[in-house]
């Protein structure tokens, strides 16, 4: 090598973190352009896989929301031997509110209870002949907050409630609470199982697609190694490419999900002849959407990283 050549110092393109990042990003974008078909297949696969997962999530979230709505019916009623004075009612409410889990407590007087009974038996008033408000007990209707609606929490709440002086009986639809909770547990288990299988399937499909696309470019990987590229130099553009494909796939999946959501709601309204808003089917909340986007990016990144391992032998 001549001295003149040794003295020549080329300007380096990859100096500093930003220099390297911009070089590798440019390389990744060039790769995407040069392998359009393969890139479309990868992005399409990621989109479809994420769309299926997102649709499942949408249905799951809505069903859980609906079930959570039913749990509002978990209500505890405390009956009193004698109707407490208004002053005592305030004191009782205060004590009830102190029990952890109380969301709302409404006092129902004997007169009000009788009114409700009459309302329910409209048209059969004869059954109520001779019945005075004194026959029915005054009560406190208590709503529980979300965290205290399972069987165990309700039972301990009821035990605490019974300690209050004047409370003669407590009713809370024990059987219903148990059934509802076992339904919710089954629902969550099924959801987790199905969701788990779906995630595994998505991982499998996406990682294999990326593996195939990288396999198609194994000559390029081999050549880069032979001309003296470091592992990082070979991997970086592929990883950035994976991230870009994953992000693009996730964006397409979300757009498709939005389209499916509106199309479904419209159809549901036509078929059922009801107001779709009343059905309560809502779009995924922002954290879930962000999770799908991050999921896409991670799928692209991890899929590329694991596939590259197999084809880089330096």
């Amino acid at each position, binding site marked *: 090598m001549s001295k003149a050549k040794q003295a020549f110092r080329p300007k*380096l393109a990859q100096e500093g973190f930003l220099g390297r990042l911009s070089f590798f990003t440019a390389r990744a974008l060039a790769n995407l352009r040069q392998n359009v078909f393969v890139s479309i297949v990868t992005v399409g696969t990621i989109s479809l896989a994420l769309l299926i997962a997102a649709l499942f999530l949408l249905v799951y979230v809505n069903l859980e929301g609906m079930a959570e709505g039913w749990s509002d019916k978990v209500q505890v009623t405390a009956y009193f031997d004698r109707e407490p004075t208004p002053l005592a009612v305030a004191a009782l409410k205060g004590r009830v509110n102190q029990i952890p889990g109380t969301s709302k407590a409404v006092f129902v007087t004997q007169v009000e209870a009788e009114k409700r009974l009459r309302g329910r038996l409209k048209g059969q008033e004869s059954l109520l002949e001779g019945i005075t408000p004194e026959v029915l007990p005054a009560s406190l209707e208590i709503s529980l907050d979300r965290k205290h609606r399972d069987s165990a929490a309700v039972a301990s709440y009821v035990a605490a409630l019974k300690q209050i002086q004047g409370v003669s009986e407590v009713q809370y639809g024990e059987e219903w609470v148990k059934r509802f909770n076992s339904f919710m547990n089954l629902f969550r288990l099924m959801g987790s199982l199905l969701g788990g299988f779906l995630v595994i399937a998505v991982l499998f499909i996406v990682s294999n697609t990326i593996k195939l696309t990288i396999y198609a470019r194994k*000559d390029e990987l081999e050549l880069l190694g*032979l001309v003296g590229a470091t592992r990082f130099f070979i991997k970086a553009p592929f990883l950035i490419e994976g991230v870009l494909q994953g992000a693009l796939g996730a964006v397409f999946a979300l757009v498709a999900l939005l389209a499916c959501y509106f199309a479904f709601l419209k159809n549901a309204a036509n078929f059922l002849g009801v107001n779709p808003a009343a059905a309560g089917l809502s779009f995924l909340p922002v954290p879930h959407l962000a999770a799908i986007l991050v999921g896409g990016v991670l799928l692209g990144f991890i899929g590329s990283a694991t596939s590259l391992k197999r084809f880089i032998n330096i």
Partner: protein
Amino acid sequence: MIQLHNVSMSYQAESPALNDVNLKIPKGDFVFLTGPSGAGKSTLLKLLYAELTPTRGQVLIDGVNLSRLPRSQIPFLRRSIGVVFQDYKLLPNRTVLENVAITLEVLGWGKRDIGKKVFHILKQMGLEEKINATPLRLSGGEQQRVALARALVNDPKILIADEPTGNLDDDNKEQILSVFKEANIRGTTVVVATHDKRVIVNSHRRVIRLEKGRLLEVSDVQG
């Protein structure tokens, strides 16, 4: 300086591709490696750029023992060695310019310098008109010259070529050989594996002969 000390190389469950080879190629030398197909020529070349590691013995490049070279250092060794592969290994979806530029991109060169240097070497090879063509649009001779340009563009200390004249006509062979000679004059050590006797005889260079994995002779050929 390239040195091989008692080098043997076996692929799994096969007879050894190289058997107890001892060899010294001084800096700035130009040697031909010859022998029939399956003699171990390609294996020996692969040992030089650390694509393979010997089953036994040691390979030293400028005093560096390749068997003890950490994997992370192999890329830096390869940057000082230009290789012309038997199958060229050109990337079909990249232009001639991009194929040659790879060697300099790996070194971290800037775009402008890469452009200048690649254009210069392609002009030397008579390929300046084909700079934006993809390899599939080139003839065999042109593809070979692109592969040669990629190997030489960073002025390597060692140039290795595996059957570089295999599928070429006489004119192309001459052109390729003259490029090797020019590189050698500039100080590059050149190792060319070939079984083309005419190429060897016309070159007046040292010849290393291999047969069934054994080094048979090292001789100077007079034209």
